[in-house]
């Protein structure tokens, strides 16, 4: 007889038995082992019908096609740059994907991006052997100037961004900061002053550290209101 041993939204550890019997199907973060479905993740159970998925609360970044990431130039050759995106392999940005400008062969690539430059890029391709190509040739992708970089757990990125960007918008609006959240857990942040930057940083880190036990949105809003005095900042440039 099939039996569900956990509830929806329960926090489980790796190796924990989620269900017994053949009626349930494992999805991300869970596998079938004989008669049991077990978690391979440290995360939150998400049940939908017979499908058991685990949403991780902690993970190392694995690039997926379409991910928008924040990275920096680690090295370059005559025709491409190697970008550190916080993954075991560096991503490759080739000349043709760098900009909508025409780059001549033999041009000095450091004119465009040089060592240590940060950028927002998109994962264009990930091969079976996990070689990663990125592109900058889409709206919103660009080199980053100024600001600061903070690192969060990639598993918390969806919560920091929120449904359709709702959470990050709340943080941006109340602090006036430009914030770009990379799927790889690297965040670029630039605000009108240090005080607001620190408030935005702390709001993000609180979500990162799973400090909330209920109502992430309400708690974030309350925190921001308390720190900023409830001021809203006007329309700022999308970063």
């Amino acid at each position, binding site marked *: 007889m099939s039996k569900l041993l956990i509830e929806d*939204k329960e*926090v489980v*550890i*790796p*190796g*924990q*038995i989620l269900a017994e019997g053949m009626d349930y199907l494992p999805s991300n973060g869970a*596998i079938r*082992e004989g008669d049991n479905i*077990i978690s*391979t*993740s*440290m*995360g*939150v159970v998400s049940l939908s019908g017979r499908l058991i998925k685990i949403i*991780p*609360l*902690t*993970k*190392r970044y*694995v690039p997926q096609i379409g991910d928008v990431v924040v990275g920096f130039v680690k090295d370059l050759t005559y025709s491409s740059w190697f970008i550190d995106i916080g*993954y*075991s*392999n560096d991503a490759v940005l080739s000349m043709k994907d760098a900009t909508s400008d025409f780059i001549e062969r033999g041009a000095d690539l450091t004119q465009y991006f040089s060592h240590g430059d940060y950028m927002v890029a998109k994962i264009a391709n990930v091969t079976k*052997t*996990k070689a990663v190509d990125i592109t900058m040739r889409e709206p919103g992708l660009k080199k980053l100037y100024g600001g600061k970089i903070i690192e969060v*757990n990639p*598993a918390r990125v969806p*919560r920091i961004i929120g449904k359709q960007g709702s959470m990050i918008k709340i943080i941006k609006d109340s602090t006036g900061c430009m914030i770009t959240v990379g799927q790889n857990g690297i965040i670029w942040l630039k605000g009108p002053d240090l005080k607001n930057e620190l408030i935005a940083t702390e709001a993000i880190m609180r979500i990162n550290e*799973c*400090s*909330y*036990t*209920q*109502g*992430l*949105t309400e708690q974030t809003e309350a925190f921001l209101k308390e720190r900023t005095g409830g001021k809203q900042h006007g329309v700022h440039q999308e970063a």
Partner: protein
Amino acid sequence: MAYTKRLDGRKLDELRKVEAKVGVIKTAAGSAMFRMGNTIAYAAVRGPREVFPRSMAKPDTAVLRCYYDMMAFSGAGERVRPGPSRRSKEISMVTAKALEPVLDLTEFPKSGIDVFIELIQTDAGTRCAGICAAALALADAGFSMKDMVCAVAMGVIDGTVVADLDKAEEDYDKGPVADLAMAMLPRSGEVTLMQMDGEASQEHIIEAVELMKKSIKKIYEVQKKALLEKYGGVKDE
């Protein structure tokens, strides 16, 4: 059975006090402290990152490397000279082998995952405490694991099978002592580390393995509690 009452009064299958905490080394990808009686181990995970030497990298998965070390002041007697020794290199290797069977590292090919284990105080069972801490640190880092790994030094003292040898029992001189350090997967009862010093009969060895299945329940509960203490409060929405 000559050894019936344990030197510190514990029951035969009773472990020393077990404690654990996750996320203790903030700059690491994952970390944990694991304590068994007076043996205290810290573990920190760094990576995935480049493997050196490059020739050690594997094309389709990450390589797990463990570095076990006892701090110079961690031994009960004289100072331990810092730096790797043959013993620590061997323990590092078997620790990695004890953890590998539960890990799926195929999402990070050609890279290395390093686990650093430091013992700040020792009272026997050090490699076991290190493995328990390392398993927690890997879970904290978010690697795919199909089970936790629990380790403890079982013992056969003068014909009696006991759980969790401390140093006094290791040094027991009124009868033969076998020190059986083992790591076991809590769900399946499978053994991923087994090292014995001393002699014991086959029956006693199997008895120790069977007893361990029960003994590690306490370790698993403490590991689970430590992970839930860090992550379990989450009720995002």
